[in-house]
């Protein structure tokens, strides 16, 4: 995890360090239960295959969100503050998959309140196939003494 990433060090076209992770049934079930998602397609193989028609149990959306959050804040450090995330799922992530997260900085901006933002295009792939894309808007300190977490009300424009 970065100690403190500041806005001046972030530029369009920058690539974030890649993260790869071997997904197991435990990954899927632990993630679903941590999100309090008891639906059987995330822990019951028979239900997933014979009712949902999928090849196995699969990772749920809130847990994927948690993976994206971890990935982005590994890069920003704790002063990075998420503003907005948009996911598009095009395929499922199953036990036995090795998922890889990659991201590129699409753009940067300073908003009217003076907050520095990076827009990231993040992709979760398995064996080169894109399973989920995520557009992330994350606030990054504009200087060593700036802290996006102190912004409230009209000073926080996510």
């Amino acid at each position, binding site marked *: 995890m970065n100690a403190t990433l500041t806005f001046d060090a972030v530029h369009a076209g920058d690539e974030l360090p890649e993260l790869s992770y071997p997904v197991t049934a435990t990954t899927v079930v632990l993630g679903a239960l941590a999100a309090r998602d008891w639906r059987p397609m995330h822990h019951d193989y028979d239900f997933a295959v014979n009712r949902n028609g999928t090849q196995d149990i699969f990772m749920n959306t809130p847990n994927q969100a948690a993976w994206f959050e971890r990935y982005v804040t590994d890069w920003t450090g704790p002063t990075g503050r998420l503003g907005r995330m948009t996911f598009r799922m095009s395929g499922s992530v199953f036990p036995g998959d090795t998922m890889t997260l990659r991201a590129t900085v699409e753009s940067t901006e300073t908003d009217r309140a003076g907050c520095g933002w990076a827009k990231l295009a993040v992709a979760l792939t398995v064996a080169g196939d894109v399973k989920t894309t995520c557009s992330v808007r994350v606030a990054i300190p504009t200087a060593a003494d700036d*802290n996006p977490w102190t912004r409230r009300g009209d000073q926080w424009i996510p």
Partner: protein
Amino acid sequence: MSGSPGATLPPQVASLIGQVQYEETGEFPVERGYVWTTCASVENGNPLFWDDAVAEDITGGPIAPPTMLSAWFRPHHWSPGRDVQPMPLQIHFDLKEIFDLPEAVMSDNTIIFYEPVRMGDRLRTRQILQSVSEPKTTKLGTGRFWVIDVEYLNQRDELVGVESYTGFGYRREGSPS
């Protein structure tokens, strides 16, 4: 995707678009056990969630990972005296029933984060159906897409987040109607 009631929408669905429904308060206060379990599930070492001194310095005390918003409203799998399992995103399940679509998946999800969620917060939520599509056929089957917004507020009536879900309710090809 239809942003307004389409000609083929049943009146009971068309009348729900834009209406606030299912306002409810979470069954339990925000607590650190789930924060740590969630962080463990994705190996998230952000010190905001593990180191109280760092959390105090940066966020004014411990907070929950922003992406945990929906977790605080998912009902217990069982509780005494309850006969019916309440469903999070109840509108999603209502639409499955209304359209007689036995299967469903979520395709898109946008989350906007506002005030940080803190330990002990009692959050409340409300759901708003934004749109329902005409019938569509995908590789999963034939059904409809719908968009549901979920707003989250804390006990001080501060907005902490808004989630917008796109769901696809469907019937697999060849399955009985």
